[in-house]
């Protein structure tokens, strides 16, 4: 391949051509790959987009406190603190893409020609100098050998061509020609991934939205000051963290979201991590959660009497309710997001500001009796069983938690997925399917027949050698079997 290029360029070597050659060269590819790898290492050490103090502390650890601020300034001015968006990193990616495109355009016509060149019979000498070759003699007729090699090739799913010469027959065939295209497919898929990423950045957005239970919004946020209008309203009905039994390992984070168009509910879905809501090309992901300390919410209690209908109550702090079938009144007097008993003092406290183990304190009062206070824990329903057989279930402290949604629109992501599929196919074909060519020359001698098998392959030579051995074995057995009869 290389020789033709040098001959051509000797004839006319203008600037355009040398630029083209440079951009098509594999040396440039090796350089850009190395540069990208090395620079990316720096990008993983220096924290990207962090507060200056953080990186100054980091540089202090590496180079000493004294020189850290100076080094920081140099690095910051070069763009290392937000490296992947810097002109030189993006420039390198552009160079890499141009290199890939030019190189592929440069080589493609030749590959195409090689692929489409019809396979020709070879002179016997040429067959004997192929990378894989074998000489055989059989005590049999030429046409028997021809038939059996033909059948053996057929059974290995080769489409066999045939050329006749005086006293000899040649069978020749090839398979996997298209595998030569796989490299281009892989390269193309890389370009498509870049395109998909560009489309995503240009026409999409990444934002967030925190919604308190019950709250609705028709905007999302890129930053606290930068709004992204949505042309519909999204509302959070509730947010909930579920925990594994007997510990504080979260089992699922979920929110019930509702999409409203002109005040009408059009979609309702409970989202979880790994299961977002998609509406009009905008995706809402469960990303985090939190609690507003100062917010006043509703205590959702379900009273389950020993006989009769259960009833759900929505109470504010201080509200009073009746325990059915008794003269007892309950009042909501306290709340803890994470109730626990202090190991040392034995007192009840909260061990977290998040709702890890929410508990509500209720004061029960019956006329003439001493009031008493009881804690009911959401995660431990047995704490709600009252002496009289009634049960109070603490369902939720609603309206104080917010769900943190990641809001994203990425019209390029389908292209990324498509490119991924293409790349998968391309890589598979490229590494596991090879372009195989076989020639079998069969020459009748006086009492025997000589067979020269020659073959070549563009990769995986050892595996192909085995295939040829199998072919020969298969054919020889049949030939010998037939000539014995």
């Amino acid at each position, binding site marked *: 391949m290389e020789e033709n290029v040098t001959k051509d360029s000797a004839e006319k070597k203008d600037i355009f051509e040398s630029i083209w050659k440079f951009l098509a060269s594999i040396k440039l*590819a090796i350089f850009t790959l190395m540069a990208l*790898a090395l620079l*990316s290492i720096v990008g993983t050490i220096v924290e990207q987009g962090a507060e200056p103090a953080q990186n100054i502390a980091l540089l202090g650890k590496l180079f000493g406190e004294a020189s850290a601020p100076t080094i920081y300034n140099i690095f910051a001015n070069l763009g290392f603190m937000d490296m992947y968006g810097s002109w030189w990193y993006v420039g390198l990616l552009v160079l890499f893409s141009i290199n890939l495109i030019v190189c592929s355009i440069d080589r493609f016509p030749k590959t195409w020609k090689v692929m489409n060149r019809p396979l020709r019979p070879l002179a016997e000498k040429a067959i004997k100098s192929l990378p894989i070759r074998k000489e055989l003699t059989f005590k049999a007729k030429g046409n028997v050998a021809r038939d059996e090699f033909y059948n053996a090739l057929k059974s290995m799913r080769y489409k066999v061509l045939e050329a006749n010469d005086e006293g000899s027959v040649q069978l020749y065939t090839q398979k996997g020609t298209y595998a030569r295209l796989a490299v281009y497919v892989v390269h193309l898929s890389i370009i498509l991934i870049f395109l998909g990423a560009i489309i995503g950045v240009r026409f999409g957005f*990444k934002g967030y939205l925190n919604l308190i239970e019950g709250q609705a919004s028709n905007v999302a946020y890129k930053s606290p000051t930068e709004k992204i209008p949505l042309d519909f309203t999204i509302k959070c009905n509730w947010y909930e963290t579920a925990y594994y039994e007997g510990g504080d390992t979260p089992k699922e984070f979920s929110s019930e979201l509702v999409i409203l168009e002109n005040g009408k509910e059009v979609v309702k879905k409970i989202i979880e*991590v790994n299961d977002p809501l998609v509406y009009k090309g905008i*995706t809402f992901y469960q990303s985090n959660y939190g609690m507003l300390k100062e917010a006043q919410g509703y205590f959702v209690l379900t009273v389950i009497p020993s006989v009769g209908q259960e009833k759900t109550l929505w109470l504010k702090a201080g509200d009073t309710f009746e325990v059915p079938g008794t003269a007892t009144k309950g009042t909501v007097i306290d709340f803890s997001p994470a109730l626990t008993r202090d190991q040392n003092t034995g007192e009840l406290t909260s061990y977290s500001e998040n709702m890890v183990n929410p508990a509500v304190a209720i004061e029960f009062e019956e006329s003439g009796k001493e009031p008493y206070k009881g804690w009911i824990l959401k995660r431990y329903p047995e704490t709600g069983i009252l002496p009289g057989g009634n049960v109070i279930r603490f369902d939720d402290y609603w309206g104080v938690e917010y769900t943190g949604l990641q809001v994203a629109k990425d019209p390029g992501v389908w292209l990324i997925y498509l490119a991924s599929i293409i*790349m998968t196919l391309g890589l598979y074909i490229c590494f596991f399917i090879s372009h195989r060519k076989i020639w079998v020359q069969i020459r009748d001698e006086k009492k025997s027949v000589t067979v020269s098998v020659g073959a070549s392959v563009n990769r995986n030579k050892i595996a192909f050698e085995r295939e040829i051995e199998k072919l020969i074995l298969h054919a020889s057995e049949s030939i010998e079997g037939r000539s014995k009869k």
Partner: protein
Amino acid sequence: MSGGIFFDIAAGAYIAAMITYIIYLVVRNKTVGLVASTITIAGFAFQSTALIIRWVNSYYFWMGSHPSSGLVEGLLRAAPLRNLYESLIFFVWSLILAHILVEFKYKIRSLGAFVTPLAASALLFIDISGTSKAIQPLIPALQSNWLLFHVLLSFLGYAAFGISFGAGAAYLITVTESRKEIPYIVGSVIVGIFMVVLIAMGIDFLSLSSADRAQMIQNHFLKTTLKSSSGGVAAASWVISIAFICAVWYFGLGLKKVLKSLSLTPAMLDDIAYKSIAVGFPLFTIGGLIMGAIWANSAWGKYWTWDPKETWSLITWFVYALYLHARFVGGWRGKRVAILAIIGFVAVVFTYLGVNLVLSGLHAYGSG
């Protein structure tokens, strides 16, 4: 039933196999080789049993907390690839599997002496890193099929890269004439550093109380030796480590005679290194990069965020792409490509462990 005992037997078998393979390298007795292979295969059978038992146990564990899951979902969520411990175990399993395949295909045993130490180091690492071996509940972000396939394929890819590392190192030794050749220096120093870090972690482990061991990686990494708060200990550790690396460099070439007298030709080793990269590269591209990106996108709406782990996967990918292009079209041959195979695996190890060990130590937020 707990699979622990089967796993311990397997670990013992791999270490025995490593010793036998090394003896085989020295005495070159066919029976010894056969014993080494047998021990490896037996170990593999035990480990496979242990994996299945763990999978079944995790399945019941999952169904206990998610009774409404179907059989398939339960099995997928329970697949033993859910944390550092399980993924390392799976790495060892795939490495041994790849080794057995290579041994049968190429009919060579001696490569075992290079691959089994890698498996033994991983096992040692598991024990000394204090990673939890208990079956743990799966946090929400990890409840994803994409994540499962991502880990599965990545680790199969890593195992293939591990084989290419072994073959690359063996290649480098067989073709080196003098210790002063730069590729040999680079290769032996890299292997030396691997060994030093592992030994230093072993010392960390031995010096810690069992309660501290669980936090070893986060809080005590190399603090007993190289990063000791006592200047004297730290200085001595550095001197000893450097001496050790020099010793690896000096004595490493001694293996050349051994390798030469075996049926290992440089061409064969080069071919094994390439073949395993040809298997590893697609696996890693699809599993490591593509499925990782799909998982991130389905969980967070961002398929790529340039976080250190992602970036290091990309660096690894660049290094192996470099290998393929330098070798096939760039005309690089021999030692230079062997070095690339070695560097590629360094990038693999760094992607999987170094990002957590070294970078999170540097970055204040990650040390918690």
